[in-house]
């Protein structure tokens, strides 16, 4: 290392002496009291913000759980209302345009194959009992739940709105629910298709795009970040914690994305719900490269 590291320069000592001569102990004591009081206030504010965040998160989780459950039920009901081929040809065919009666048995109520799913009436309980596989435990929802539906339902926090566009299923009577439980081998493709169309329906929503931008920034997916910005997603869009993509990129050590976002005009001083700004986060990182990229250092 340098000789400057090992040899103390007399100027250093002279400067320390000079400051000692100029020190004002009263001013120093007053400064100390101010700083410690401000730090204490800040700690209280932080604690109260943390509490609020926890409540908010709790509420979000509850909403997500409700949303997930709604999606699950909607899927099950959709399956329940889907047309089924009759087990055997009907001995006396009904007129082609005759509406399917709410008959007590499946044999008496073959649904026309071309009938739209949404218009199909709920199947009576008797049919459900007959079609229930013996191996399935009707009380064990998880055992009978198709894996694809479970996976998708976990996405509920960001897809609350996705759960909504299945109105006909939600309106169906509760008695049709056992059908869903009774069909453990529910077609995964159907669930995927339903969610795919639901996603398409909400793909343009601002909050969804904002969440995607923030998530892409946190994960270092610079291509996606660029694409979303070019699509017009606001650079300072926030997620549920009030964090911007810039904040996430700083936290996640993604300097390239932070540079890109800064170049696109991301706000360094906007604060998240905890009162921290991207500037504060960069300061905490103490990374000269990042500071330069963000214009915080010359």
């Amino acid at each position, binding site marked *: *290392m*340098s000789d*400057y*590291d090992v040899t103390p*320069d*007399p*100027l*250093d*000592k*002279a*400067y*320390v*002496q*000079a*400051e*000692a*001569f*100029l*020190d004002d102990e009263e001013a*120093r004591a007053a*400064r*100390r009291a*101010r*700083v*410690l009081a*401000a*730090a*204490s206030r*800040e*700690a209280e504010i*932080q604690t109260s913000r943390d509490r609020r965040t926890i409540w908010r998160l709790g509420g979000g989780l509850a909403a997500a759980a409700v949303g997930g459950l709604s999606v699950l039920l909607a899927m099950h009901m959709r399956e329940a209302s889907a047309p089924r081929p009759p087990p055997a040809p009907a001995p006396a065919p009904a007129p082609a345009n005759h509406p399917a009666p709410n008959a007590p048995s499946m044999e008496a109520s073959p649904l026309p194959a071309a009938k739209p799913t949404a218009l199909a009436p709920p199947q009576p309980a008797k049919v459900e009992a007959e079609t229930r596989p013996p191996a399935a435990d009707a009380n064990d929802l998880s055992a009978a739940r198709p894996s694809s539906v479970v996976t998708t339902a976990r996405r509920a926090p960001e897809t609350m709105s996705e759960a909504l566009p299945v109105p006909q299923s939600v309106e169906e009577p509760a008695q049709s629910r056992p059908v869903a439980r009774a069909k453990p081998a529910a077609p995964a493709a159907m669930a995927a298709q339903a969610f795919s169309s639901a996603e398409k329906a909400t793909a343009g929503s601002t909050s969804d795009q904002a969440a995607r931008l923030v998530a892409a920034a946190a994960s270092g997916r610079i291509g996606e970040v660029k694409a979303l910005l070019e699509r017009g997603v606001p650079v300072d869009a926030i997620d549920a914690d009030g964090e911007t993509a810039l904040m996430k990129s700083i936290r996640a050590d993604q300097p390239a994305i932070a540079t890109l976002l800064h170049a696109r005009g991301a706000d360094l001083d906007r604060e998240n719900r905890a*009162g*921290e700004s991207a*500037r*504060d*986060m960069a*300061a*905490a*990182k*103490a990374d*000269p*490269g990042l*500071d*330069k990229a963000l214009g*915080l*250092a*010359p």
Partner: protein
Amino acid sequence: MEAAPATDAQLLRAHSAGDAQAFARLYDRYDRACFHFVRRMLGAAHADAAEDLHQETWISIAKSAAAFDPDKASFPTWLFTIARRKVWDHFRRQKVAVLVSADEESAMAAPDPGPTPLEQVQSQELAQRMVTAIEALPLEQRSAFLLSAYGELPLSEIALVTGVGLETAKTRLRYARVRLRQVLAAEEADHV
């Protein structure tokens, strides 16, 4: 046996866990170094902002304590990085344009005059002349000198704080000292 004093990192952790005394202890360790750094970096023209920026620095420390990683840098390095940035932000807000020293080379044009009588500061007047000379240094040289003299940071950490390479930090510190001696020697000659 007496228990070893808590390290800076331990005090920060204790502060994060809600121990207000830990923050006070940490503050007392670095209060002077931080304040003098901020004050001298601001110079006489912006001296009024010193108290506020010093306070803002410590508030940032308090808020970000949980994010401090002692494996990345020492606490003084972190502290001075934040303090320096507060000063820079202040200059930016005030639209102070001269942020980078343009005349580093000129400092080496004249030879180092060697030790000066001012290196033994024994009066308020000498002390004032010393700090005035320091405040007249170009910002980056001043920064390097203050971090070394009062902050007692090694070159590697000065480089980290100022965001430059080791050689640049070393050059700035050397130029700062030479220039300081030149100014002090010239003042001394004027007073004789």
